[in-house]
């Protein structure tokens, strides 16, 4: 208590009250995991969905369609009903031990020691500087996350917007812009096609009629103090300036991994989140990681559906039954960007829903996916559906038992045509 911190102990501390953290808390509560506490630094629970007013949440996990805010409320209720303590306005500021975290809230400073910690801190979109887009630093540059909150708060946005990115979240940004009365001038992607569902694209085209500029990169922002134009260049080398006072940078997700890194967790170079095995274990015993922190990004329902196996793994640890992780690294080769989980024990549990999540950087219309270990084929399948970048694909875990625990890293890749 030397610096005035309140010292406390809980059984499970869940960091982050988004879909992953709340679903984990509900599942842990249902298993009688003891004192389960979820902390979130925001004023409201629910994570990203609470700003996403359109429908489409809850389909696969709660078996009904609801808006993002309604989904956020329901997930919170389920956690609370299961006996978990859910706290907001609590910022976790660092580690004071392997399973001890410091936090600050209006109620004061605390130091909480848990028997297990679940990191569910989520992911965010890369902002303009991280994308190294040159030019002026004008007003009118947004990420979808910032845009959606500003619109909800009734803050002015602009009149003419360019949406950068053409994946699911990009169309979500289009809906938000329309709601705010902002005209979409163009959607720009450096990939050859959009990466959302055809129906979204067709619907957006029909309703708002903006062009989709493919194979096109943003090369410069113009204007000061307000954005006046977005300079783009197509793969053929042609440049143009799109007349806009607003640009929304969508997608390009990065996990919110600060706490994971400050805790010295082994990180995965592909996801940039902590490396986890099929039981959500990180390199630090007792510290688990889940949700979009470990696979940036999946939909809220996919994240929530991981909660049951995650809770099983945490309960095994609490019971002292957690087998020591002897994990084999799982890697990918380009154009695959990452795989999750990215550590495995051939004798360990299968990953949630018996599948690994794969993320590709490029389209592959007839991919042949293979898994190899030291040149030895473990899996090969020609019957894959097309791979679409910026969208998860799923690799069965059926090959997992064939991994040699001492055989070195396993690699998932696209086979060259044979």
């Amino acid at each position, binding site marked *: 208590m030397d610096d005035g911190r309140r010292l406390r102990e809980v059984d499970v501390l869940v960091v982050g009250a988004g879909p992953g953290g709340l679903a984990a808390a509900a599942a842990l509560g249902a298993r009688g995991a003891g004192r389960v506490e979820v902390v979130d630094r*925001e004023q409201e629970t629910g994570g990203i969905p609470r700003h996403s007013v359109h429908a489409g949440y809850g389909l696969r996990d709660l078996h009904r369609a609801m808006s993002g805010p309604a989904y956020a409320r329901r997930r919170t209720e389920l956690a609370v009903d299961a006996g978990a303590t859910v706290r907001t*306005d609590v910022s976790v500021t660092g580690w004071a031990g392997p399973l001890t975290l410091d936090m*600050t809230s209006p109620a004061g400073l605390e130091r909480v020691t848990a028997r297990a910690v679940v990191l569910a801190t989520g992911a965010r979109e890369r*902002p303009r500087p991280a994308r190294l887009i*040159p030019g002026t630093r004008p007003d009118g540059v*947004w*990420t979808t996350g910032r845009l959606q909150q500003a619109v909800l708060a009734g803050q002015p946005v602009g009149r003419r917007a360019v949406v950068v990115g053409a994946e699911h979240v990009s169309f979500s940004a289009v809906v938000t812009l329309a709601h705010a009365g902002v005209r979409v001038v163009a959607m720009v992607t450096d990939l050859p096609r959009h990466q959302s569902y055809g129906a979204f694209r067709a619907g957006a085209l029909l309703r708002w009629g903006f062009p989709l500029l493919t194979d096109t990169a943003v090369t*410069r922002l113009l204007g*000061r103090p307000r954005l006046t134009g977005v300079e783009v260049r197509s793969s053929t080398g042609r440049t143009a300036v799109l007349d806009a006072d607003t640009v929304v940078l969508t997608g390009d997700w990065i996990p919110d991994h600060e706490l994971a*890194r400050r805790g010295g967790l082994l990180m995965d170079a592909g996801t940039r989140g902590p490396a986890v095995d099929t039981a959500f274990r990180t390199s630090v015993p007792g510290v688990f990681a889940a949700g979009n922190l470990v696979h940036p990004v999946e939909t809220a329902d996919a994240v929530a559906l991981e909660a049951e196996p995650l809770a099983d793994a945490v309960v095994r640890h609490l019971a002292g039954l957690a087998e020591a992780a002897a994990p084999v690294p799982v890697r990918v080769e380009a154009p695959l960007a990452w795989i999750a989980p990215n550590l495995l024990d051939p004798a360990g549990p299968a990953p949630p829903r018996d599948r690994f999540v794969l993320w590709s950087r490029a389209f592959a219309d007839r991919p042949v996916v293979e898994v190899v270990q030291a040149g030895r084929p473990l899996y090969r399948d020609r019957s894959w559906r097309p791979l679409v970048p910026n969208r998860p694909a799923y690799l069965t875990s059926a090959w997992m038992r064939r991994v040699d625990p001492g055989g070195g890293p396993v690699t998932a890749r696209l086979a060259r045509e044979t």
Partner: protein
Amino acid sequence: MSERSEVFDVLVVGAGVVGTAIGRELAHRDLRVGLVDAAEDVGTGTSKANTAILHTGFDATPGTLEARLVARGHDLLGGYAAAAGIAVERTGALLVAWDDEQLAVLPTLQAKAERNGYRATRLVGVGELYEREPHLGPGACGALEVPGESIVDPWSPPIAFATEAVAGGVELLLGTRVTGVRVGPPHRLVTTRGELAARHVVNVAGLFSDVLDRWFRRDGFTVTPRRGELLVYDKLARPLVRHVLLPVPTKLGKGVLVAPTVFGNVLLGPTAEDVVDRTDTGSTAAGLAFLRDRGARILPELLDEEVTNVYAGLRAATEHGDYQLRGYPEQGYVCVGGIRSTGLTASMAIAEHVVRLLAEGGLRTPPRAGAVTPSMPPLGEEQRRPFQRADLVAADPAYGQVVCHCERVTLGEIRDAQQGPLAAGDLDGLRRRTRALNGRCQGFYCGAAVTSLLGANHG
């Protein structure tokens, strides 16, 4: 706006770090002083976009005014920062040689430092160099250690100086662009808010100082803005570097450095490019590629980290090798031009020098009490910030409510920054006073909340 009938003893034109330092110095005299700037806040020009280093002046050109004022300013600003609670980290610098030719230059730089009166440099062998900077890229041959080089919070000094100046009775005239001069006595400055009369004028107009100088019928120099682009890396990169890593200067310029910041980030830059437009603070694809190429050599792991911010500043370079700082006693005019990248360090020494020049011009400067060193919010990562203080949170829970998560800025700090004579008027001003919105997410999480808080206090 109407004309003002009163005549100022001194009007200082330009409220950057040097202008505010002059205002602060004059606030301790019994004078009627005005501090004028076109912008709506202090420190918004060259002062806000620099490398944030508290220089020793070891590499200045010996015998120049700049060399003298930087050395003196280093001590003055260091002392002031300590008194005002402005973050300074005494990291020291290592000037790294990457080939034999550069290695051979190090003793020359050491000798130059001694001619500048700086005797603490030391040659460091390659073994010790890698021991002290284990993440340095391969191929370094040795270094010159400059233990006195430090890093400083570059945003708080102009705000502190202006706060102290206003407390001492200086009138702060922001949003007031000078558009012409009718040379006196008394001088009449034509501004966007009417005419201002003064017996003495100090020109600290930075990138526009040559224009103002010509209006005073002087023609000593021309400002050629030199653009410096900089990359700010994520705080998670901070453990990669312990000192300011300086390059060996070449004929082409001072080169690209890697430096920690007091906010806990790592800086890579600057470029050096002469531009025509005095407001062109945009970054370029070529500049960013160049910096990343240099950074990859100096600190390869840095390139794996996320970039938190990119900015460009314009230094007020001239065709001369020294500050263009002179008094025209017969005219009641002092010109403070050509203050380049060393202006932050030298600011308080320049202010002392300017007051001497004003006295030579016949200004009587009797002392006056009233202006006291303000206590600035602790923005440094090494300082104890409000979210870390149980006592503060217990007394006011607003200091426990973190609003900007990346930078851990609390509601209490955002509220405080909007009070007092130097209150933040916009998001950019709030950034420089609190660090809010300056973090890795660039407002993804808190942008709307911070904007609402700004609106709330001004509604």
